[in-house]
């Protein structure tokens, strides 16, 4: 069997949507029929289990595996909605030094044997936790939001990822608001790509549905009614090599858009 691909999802800045992206991309890939394992590499501050709605099923965690308290398969939680999807949770009561880069490489190497994709949710920051998260990665997805602070940290992280030998990271711009971009109060996609000199993997619009989906522990990709869900599904298909154009962020149902179309302004 062909080896799977390990992708780290990272950002530098916290709170830009790494965990949400990992959960949704993983679920979207599994919905495409791929075997996927999500790894929560945020030791001590685990959250991916909560976003996936799997927090009640944790028995063993990543540290138990590297310390050989259990077998890898025992710690992998099967998703309740999709049998192709697995989660390897982080330990909540340990710190980032409980696992080494070599151990992460070995773990990911083992997972690659049976999986198509391994998505590693990186902790925020540039310390040991980040180094562990990218240790076994073949490629990297950088998440940013259209804010000065987030783009700045993304730039720093791109440099660090490349220094670690993970080449050609790709960017996801999260929480973009078309209305604000249009009135010139939010950086647009081209601005950010020009500044960061990086390839774009996808753009995810701000969507209230994300809050609701996190409340419920159900990734938003299950519903194609949400723009954010659609955006994540598109990104998964791009990872699979499909050529899908960036989503038109326009909400075509808005009253103003309809009138504009009517008077021929669109």
């Amino acid at each position: 069997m062909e080896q799977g691909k390990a992708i780290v999802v990272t950002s530098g800045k916290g709170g830009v949507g790494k965990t949400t992206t990992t959960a949704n991309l993983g679920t979207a890939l599994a919905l495409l029929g791929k075997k996927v394992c999500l790894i929560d590499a945020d030791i001590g501050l685990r959250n991916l289990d909560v976003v996936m709605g799997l927090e009640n099923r944790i028995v063993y965690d990543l540290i138990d595996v590297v310390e050989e308290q259990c077998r890898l398969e025992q710690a992998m939680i099967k998703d309740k909605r999709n049998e192709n999807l697995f989660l390897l949770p982080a330990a909540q009561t340990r710190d980032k030094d409980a696992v080494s880069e070599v151990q992460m490489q070995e773990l990911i190497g083992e997972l690659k044997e049976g999986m198509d994709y391994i998505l590693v949710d990186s902790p925020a920051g540039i310390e040991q936790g980040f180094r562990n998260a990218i240790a076994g990665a073949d490629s990297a997805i950088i998440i940013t939001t259209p804010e000065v602070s987030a783009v700045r940290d993304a730039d720093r992280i791109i440099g660090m990822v490349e220094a670690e030998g993970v080449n050609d990271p790709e960017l996801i711009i999260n929480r973009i608001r078309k209305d604000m971009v249009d009135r010139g109060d939010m950086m647009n996609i081209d601005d950010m790509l020009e500044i960061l000199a990086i390839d774009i993997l996808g753009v995810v619009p701000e969507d209230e549905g994300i809050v609701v989906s996190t409340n419920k522990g159900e990734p938003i990709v299950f519903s194609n009614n949400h723009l954010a869900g659609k955006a994540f599904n598109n990104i998964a298909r791009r990872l699979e090599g499909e050529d899908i154009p960036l989503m038109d962020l326009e909400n075509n149902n808005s009253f103003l858009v309809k009138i504009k179309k009517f008077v021929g302004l669109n």
Partner: protein
Amino acid sequence: MVISILDKIREFFTQEEKTDSGSSSVAKERLQFILVQDRIKLSPQQMEEMKADLVEVITRYIEVDKEKIDMDISREEEKMAMVANFPLKKQRK
């Protein structure tokens, strides 16, 4: 008359399409400035000093328009590059 009303309506709907008037251009400028410092780890003061030194060297040989000198650090592929633009002063006839 009809045309002017149509124009007004058009104006109303196109107003929100305006770009570069809002804070995004400020964000972009600030970001570019911040990243220059992050990327080469020089303080703004050191940047100015380097710029002054460079200008001094270059003006020894050619006349440049000091007001319009532009220097930027950017990343191209995996390497950093400093791109400096020294416009020459117009030749006097």
